[in-house]
């Protein structure tokens, strides 16, 4: 969603990218399994997953470094499968930045333009323009090794964008940056992606990165997309236990469905508490289920009701603006409760005896996984 206040340069047009039933195997092992994904023009999609989930393979397929075993890559209605990487007009920012160490910043940025046979004057002008875009004026004659990590990344971005690519691929671009710089660069990349109207794919294993800059997130596992949705959807309504566990922290409670209403189920937890849980998935009374709930959607209380779980408070940790309580049920199930911490509040506020769902809480139900 390019913001309306940033007008696109006239020669730039966002283009959609479609992955159509892409599969890829390395010998016997299937790295990417029938992935279909439509990236809208100007959209930034994050491929999020643990290492080995196929996200990097997918990125290399789009770039043309790997020829997929089956399926098609379509950029703006054009199948690009037979095009070599140098003719796909795809810009990439690598985890290691991959700046040419023997060239200056200006030579790095000009590399793609020279490869396209642009005139010297055009190159000079575009390099100047790109240096200004990434706010690196005055660094033109430096060598990459004389730059900090963040500066190297700006140059890598400038180099990728100088050739006006149709698609921008970001391969774990923040992994090598320290935490404070990371947020700055995320904002920077988001700004440039919008300014240039780029359709972009971000590959990452870091959910915070994906949450902060992606329009939509595709959570991947074992070569498949487990769920595709906006960051909020992924967080609030995970479709599988894998997504639920991979994104954010969450507590799991085993239970049995007691009653089924219209999209709402009464679930009896092992601790005896009865929760009313809304779910779009169908369940029948007697089904064994797993109910998950985010720590910040639980509260500690002294009052026992039908929905509360009797607990003992083991530990409270102040983590920044949050207070994380580590609690345990009588049966020995441990879980976490998070509350925002008031300044000056004592760390262990009370001898809480019960844990209840917060008023806005939205537990999620999953079928009990086999074994």
């Amino acid at each position, binding site marked *: 969603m390019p913001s309306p206040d940033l007008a696109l340069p006239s020669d730039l047009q966002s283009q959609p990218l479609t992955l159509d039933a892409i599969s890829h195997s390395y010998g016997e092992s299937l790295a990417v399994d029938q992935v279909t994904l439509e990236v809208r023009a100007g959209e930034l999609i994050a491929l999020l997953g643990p290492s080995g989930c196929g996200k990097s393979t997918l990125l290399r397929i789009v770039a043309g470094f790997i020829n997929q075993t089956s399926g098609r890559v379509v950029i703006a209605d054009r199948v690009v499968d037979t095009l070599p990487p140098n003719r796909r007009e795809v810009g990439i920012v690598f985890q290691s930045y991959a*700046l*040419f160490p023997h060239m200056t910043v200006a030579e790095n940025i000009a590399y793609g333009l020279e490869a396209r046979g642009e005139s010297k004057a055009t190159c000079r002008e575009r390099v100047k323009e790109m240096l200004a875009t990434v706010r690196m004026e005055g660094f033109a004659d430096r060598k990459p090794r004389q730059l900090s990590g963040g500066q190297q990344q700006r140059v890598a971005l400038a180099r990728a964008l100088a050739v006006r690519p149709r698609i921008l691929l970001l391969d774990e671009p923040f992994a090598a940056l320290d935490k404070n710089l990371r947020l700055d660069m995320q904002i920077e990349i988001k700004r440039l992606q919008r300014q240039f109207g780029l359709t972009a794919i971000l590959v990452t294993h870091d959910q915070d990165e994906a949450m902060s800059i992606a329009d939509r997130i595709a959570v991947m596992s074992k070569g498949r997309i487990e769920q595709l949705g906006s960051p909020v959807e992924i967080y609030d309504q995970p479709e599988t236990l894998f997504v639920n566990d991979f994104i954010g922290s969450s507590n799991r409670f085993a239970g049995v469905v007691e009653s089924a209403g219209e999209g709402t189920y009464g679930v009896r937890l092992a601790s005896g508490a009865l929760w009313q849980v809304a779910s779009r998935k169908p369940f029948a009374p007697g089904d064994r289920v797993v109910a998950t709930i985010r720590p910040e959607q639980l509260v500690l209380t002294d009052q026992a009701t039908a929905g509360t779980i009797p607990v003992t408070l083991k530990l409270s940790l102040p983590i920044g603006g949050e207070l994380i309580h580590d609690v345990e049920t009588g049966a020995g199930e441990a879980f976490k409760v998070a509350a925002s911490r008031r300044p000056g509040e004592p760390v262990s506020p009370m001898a809480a005896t019960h844990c209840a769902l917060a008023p806005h809480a939205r537990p999620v139900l999953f079928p009990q996984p086999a074994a």
Partner: protein
Amino acid sequence: MSGAATGETAGVEWRLAAPLGLTYLAFFAAPLLILLVMSFSVDDNLGGFSLAAWAKFWGDPFYRGVVWDTLRLGLVTVAMTTLFAYPIALLFIASGPGLQRLLLFIVLLPLLTSVVIRTFAWIAILSREGVLNQALLALGLTTAPLNLLQTELGLVIALMQIEMPLMLLPLITVMRQVDPSLSDASRALGGSKWRTFRKVILPLSLPGWIAGATLVFASATTAFISQTVIGGARLVYLPTLIWQQAMVVYNWPFAAVASVTLLVAVLAGVSLFAMLGRFARTTA
């Protein structure tokens, strides 16, 4: 505290280096000095002072030709080894671990066989009735067998195989350290494969090439056995000349002149490559 520590370290280092240092002094520096004195002597008893041997060597176009031939042999071998080493190195970098091990074994094979055996094997391959000529004749690429033995071409072919590990090992070592995503970056930016090689891989592999070229040059110019056995009597290079003068003609001062010349020639070649290296580093 740190001062005491460094002082102690320096003392230890010196004493540890002493055995090798003394060995070098006795068996390397001293003979070299004797060689130098010998070249200015009248006879092999190191008696008298004379420039006769030097004047004879550099005054004769034949001997000057031998020096030039030796240097050219080194340079041509370096050029040819380079030409064949780069494709192999690129293949090596692009291969998986299994193929890499196999390639490394093939590359190292010449080092695992004796020089004499390797050289005689090349005679069997290069001779008029040899494998190469028979293959060329059978394929109809030539009507008469090529004369490869006792030619510079034949010698360079043999030397190339023998010296290949010296070029490949440093080249592969350096190219392995080059981040593979640099090639990917070049390709994604629109660079063709050739441009990627010329602009990215080649400049970044230069330190390895310089190390390899230095070794190959020094080794090819002094490869006495290959030069004599394959070059035969028709091709004379400095090592052969030294051997003839020292062991056949028994003109030790003259052999000493040739030896010092070979030493200086090799050193000149080696420093040329080192200079190239410094130049590449400052411009890179």
